[in-house]
């Protein structure tokens, strides 16, 4: 109450002063009136009244001290003063605030993503006690090691849980997958959701409670699960079922199987993988029977919680013997395994790593690019700060005489610094607020830009909590960065030298040059990085993938003959169904291919470029099993024609090829032929593959094509004829719109029956584009930031040159009067500009080269010291610098010598 009134009075001291004055006046008037009544003259009454009242000013100051917060009053004065200063120079204020706000906004937006994906602990009970198991990647000789393996088999999970009993609790956490779900009721729409398998104890392990109903328990770990049940996420329950508690006990159909809804997790829990929100959890035991039995089937992650006092090293030691045993058995299972890979298996160790922030595939892919983008944004911030600092510096020089006056009136240096810092803080707070709003708009856009359309990246961008603090911190830091030096300089004003002309300015100008050099160096680094990322993306887009991705629709088709998470495994156990399904598939293909506007159609087991793959070592007669496992891909007749991959020799598949038993016909690509036969004349050659030595004969040779991504040079591929599958991919080449093709397919699948329908719709260009999200992010953000940095640096350069040219008016006037030509004066200013830029460029070049070595692995077709990239950056930079310098130079050249001299 009382501090509130003191606060109010400090903010608005005028009211208080009026109050105090009025109360005093009132008292005096009453006293005078009373004295007059007692017979005194008016003058005498007033004299006595004043005498008995005492020293009015001192008493008023005393009251004032009680009733307002003096420290705050000074600050409020400073803020008022700063505000008036900004109002006086609105162009400066707006430029400074907007440029800083952009920089703070960019930094904050990226930080909010880094925070959500990488830094923030999971919203679960004591997340720092959580760990995840992993083991080093096992990779081909010569190729670099990939990310650690975090997937394990069900038997491994059971064994690890058993041997670590007492030291840790382990839980099974499947990877979230996009699947189809249908709520209760026959009319409910089918929609794509994220499904993850977990063990019965998983929720309890994380300390997650139900919002409604119950969660899983050890009961669900029995095989087969007694009763198929599902748990919904709070967010899905809200979105899909309007938070209706009545859904518990209802049915949810997932991939054709029915589950009873057991309960809903508490609010705010989205699984253990930042980047993906799980909508529905199923018990791990509801997964494929074989997945629960086979130790080769790696499909789950293991996350656990340490018992008190257990270290990760201790737990690793407990798990290693069992892990090694599994590795030994795995090697035994594959007699054809190359020796180098066998050694890696046997030497492999198990790692226990912290899972406090969860486990995330998104993080694996994007953590380095995100940190780079974060660095780029920080570079922009630095440029913006240097920019504002140099403008403030210029302004403080303009205010030098004011400062001199204040110093000579007795203002303390700290008081002046405080006041100038208040000004920069006010700027940065406004910029911070605006930047935070920018971030709030920008961050979801950034996330969206790296999200594939059908499997969006979902992050809790807690823009209002830690991110807000970050924003405030960054703004304050930047205020100190750009405010302190000019403030210190300005407050050091020597009253006498201010009164005499402007000495002591040399030092200040040097500081201005430092700021411009910082801007030039940072901006050059940004331009080099931006150019490298843009060229890298360009290089990737120019890669010939070996197929023509334009006008190809990729359609996922399912039948409800039998549902299975692993179609290939299912086929092996259902030979009769295979022929029926194959027949259906071929009928669909033929019907589509004969439609008007369709240029080609072909079937395959899954789409290329989506990570799906099947690889086997091959055994060439007379040689041992191959060192490498090669890509195997089952396709239908017309695949090469539809993809426009040239057939170099032999023939494409025909329908009868799928029925071949024993010796299977195969098409290999050139890379395959070169690697195993040293020739492309290989039609008719035979070899075998796999554990059970399936025999194949080459019937055709295709041109090289990429399979996983555009980055690696064409991999050897072996094409085999397609088998009947209950879920497969149809490629359709057509200039028609995707919607038209889908309508056509809907019609045909209805005719064919068997529950055949279109499940996923996309285009080959989209699929290929999705493998470039990292590059697109870096090129987009890098390019935009390079542009912004360049613009800010140009403004800074322009500002300083304008200022120095202005200061040299007299000198230039004399030169002009003595007969200097315009070109000489222009070159005078340009020389100064190049002098300003050289230092910054040299530092920037060193910085850029250092940065390139860090980015290197994320770039495609760019050398660490790439003359093209550096040259382009240099050219862009010089052009910008010249433009920024031209206007001040031109203005100087047009100076009329007489008026220039008279001005002084």
């Amino acid at each position, binding site marked *: 109450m*009382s501090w509130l*009134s003191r606060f109010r009075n400090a903010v608005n001291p005028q009211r208080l002063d009026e109050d105090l004055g009025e109360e*005093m006046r*009132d008292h005096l008037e009453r006293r005078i009136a009373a004295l007059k009544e007692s017979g005194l003259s008016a003058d005498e009454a007033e004299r006595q009244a004043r005498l008995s009242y005492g020293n009015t000013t001192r008493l008023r100051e005393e009251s004032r001290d*009680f009733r307002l917060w003096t420290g705050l009053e000074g600050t409020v004065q400073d803020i008022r003063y700063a505000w008036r200063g900004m109002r006086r120079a609105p162009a400066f204020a707006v430029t400074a605030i907007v440029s800083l706000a952009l920089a703070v906004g960019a930094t904050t937006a990226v930080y909010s993503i880094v925070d959500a994906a990488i830094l923030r602990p999971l919203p679960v009970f004591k997340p720092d006690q959580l760990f995840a198991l992993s083991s080093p990647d096992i990779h081909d000789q010569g190729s670099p090691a990939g990310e650690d393996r975090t997937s394990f088999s069900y038997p491994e999970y059971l064994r690890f849980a058993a041997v670590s009993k007492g030291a840790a609790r382990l839980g099974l956490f499947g990877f979230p997958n996009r699947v189809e779900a249908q709520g209760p009721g026959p009319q409910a729409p089918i929609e794509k959701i994220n499904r993850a398998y977990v063990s019965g104890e998983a929720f309890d392990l994380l300390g997650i409670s139900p919002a409604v109903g119950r969660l899983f328990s050890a009961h669900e770990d029995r095989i087969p699960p007694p009763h198929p049940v599902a748990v919904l996420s709070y967010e899905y329950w809200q979105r899909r079922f309007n938070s209706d508690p009545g859904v518990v006990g209802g049915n949810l159909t997932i991939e054709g199987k029915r589950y009873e809804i057991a309960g809903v997790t508490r609010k705010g829990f989205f699984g253990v993988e930042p980047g993906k929100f799980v909508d529905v959890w199923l018990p791990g035991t509801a997964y494929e029977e074989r997945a629960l039995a086979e130790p080769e089937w790696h499909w789950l992650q293991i996350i656990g919680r340490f018992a008190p006092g257990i270290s990760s090293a201790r737990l690793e030691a407990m798990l290693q013997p069992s892990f090694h045993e599994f590795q030994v058995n795995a090697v035994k299972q594959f007699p054809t395994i190359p020796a180098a890979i066998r050694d890696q298996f046997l030497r492999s160790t198990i790692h226990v790593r912290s899972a406090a922030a969860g486990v995330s595939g998104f993080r694996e892919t994007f953590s380095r690019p995100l940190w780079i983008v974060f660095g780029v944004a920080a570079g922009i911030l630095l440029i913006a700060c240097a920019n504002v600092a140099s403008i403030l510096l210029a302004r403080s020089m303009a205010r030098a005489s004011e400062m001199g006056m204040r110093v000579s009136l007795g203002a303390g240096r700290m008081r002046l610094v405080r006041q100038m810092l208040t000004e920069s803080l006010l700027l940065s707070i406004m910029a911070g607020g605006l930047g935070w709003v920018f971030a709030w708009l920008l961050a979801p856009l950034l996330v969206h830009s790296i999200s594939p359309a059908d499997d969006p990246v979902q992050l809790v961008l807690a823009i209002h909590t830690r991110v807000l603090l970050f924003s405030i911190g960054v703004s304050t830091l930047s205020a100190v960065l750009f405010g302190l030096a000019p403030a210190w300089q300005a407050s050091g004003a020597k009253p006498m030298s201010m009164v005499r002309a402007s000495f002591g300015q040399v030092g200040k100008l040097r500081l201005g040059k430092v700021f411009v050099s910082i801007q030039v160096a940072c901006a050059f680094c940004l331009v080099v990085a931006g150019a490298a990322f843009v060229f890298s993306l360009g290089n990737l887009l120019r890669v010939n993938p070996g197929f023509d991705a334009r006008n190809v629709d990729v359609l996922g088709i399912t039948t409800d003959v039998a549902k299975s998470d692993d179609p290939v495994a299912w086929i092996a156990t259902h030979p009769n169904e295979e022929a029926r399904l194959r027949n259906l598939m071929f009928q669909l293909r033929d019907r589509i291919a004969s439609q008007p506007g369709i240029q080609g159609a072909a079937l395959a087991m899954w789409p290329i470029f989506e990570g799906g793959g099947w690889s086997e070592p091959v055994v060439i007669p007379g040689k041992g099993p191959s060192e490498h496992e090669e890509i195997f891909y089952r396709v239908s007749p017309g695949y090469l024609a539809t993809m426009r991959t040239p057939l170099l020799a032999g023939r494409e598949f025909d329908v009868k090829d799928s029925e071949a038993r024993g010796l299977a016909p195969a098409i290999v690509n050139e890379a395959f032929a070169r690697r195993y036969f040293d020739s492309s004349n290989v039609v008719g050659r035979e070899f075998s593959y796999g554990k059970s030595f399936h025999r194949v004969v080459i019937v055709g040779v295709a041109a090289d094509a990429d399979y996983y991504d555009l980055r690696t040079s064409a991999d050897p591929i072996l094409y085999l004829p397609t088998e009947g599958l209950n879920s497969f991919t149809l490629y359709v080449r057509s200039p028609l719109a995707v919607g038209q093709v889908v309508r056509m397919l809907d019609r045909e699948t209805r005719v064919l029956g068997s529950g055949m329908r279109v499940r996923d719709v996309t285009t080959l260009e989209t699929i290929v584009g999705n493998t470039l999200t990292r590059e697109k992010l870096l090129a987009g953000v890098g390019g935009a930031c390079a542009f912004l940095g360049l613009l800010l640096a140009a403004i800074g350069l322009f500002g300083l040159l304008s200022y120095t040219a202005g200061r040299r008016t007299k000198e230039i006037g004399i030169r002009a009067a003595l007969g200097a030509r315009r070109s000489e004066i222009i070159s005078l200013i340009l020389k100064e500009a190049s002098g300003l830029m050289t230092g910054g460029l040299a530092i920037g070049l060193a910085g850029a080269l250092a940065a390139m070595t860090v980015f290197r692995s994320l770039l495609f077709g760019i050398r660490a010291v790439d003359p093209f990239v550096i040259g382009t950056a240099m050219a862009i930079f010089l052009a910008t610098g010249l433009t920024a310098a031209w206007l001040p130079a031109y203005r100087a050249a047009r100076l009329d010598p007489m008026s220039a001299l008279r001005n002084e």
Partner: protein
Amino acid sequence: MGKTNSAQSALDLLVLTILERRGPIHGYGIATAIQDLSQEALRIEEGSLYPALHRMEEMGWITAEWKMSETGRRARFYRLTSAGRKQVLSESEQWASFTAGVSRVLRHA
């Protein structure tokens, strides 16, 4: 803002007591009341009453509001709060023991 001198605490006690007995009253009223009641024995510097009032206001013992006075002009009227009432009790006790102590010394010295 602890009180250190007895003159200040005496003034506080006088003001608080007057406010307690006479209800809402303005600064001038308090000043004349002190003079009249003490039969001019206590002559205070009238102006120093106001910083004391403002200090006690910040302490939360009294509150003030602008009201129309009997002469039809705006005046700042002070009123005791419940915290002020407690303060009157404890201060008058202290004062009583202080004066009792002083008079004992005067009597027996």
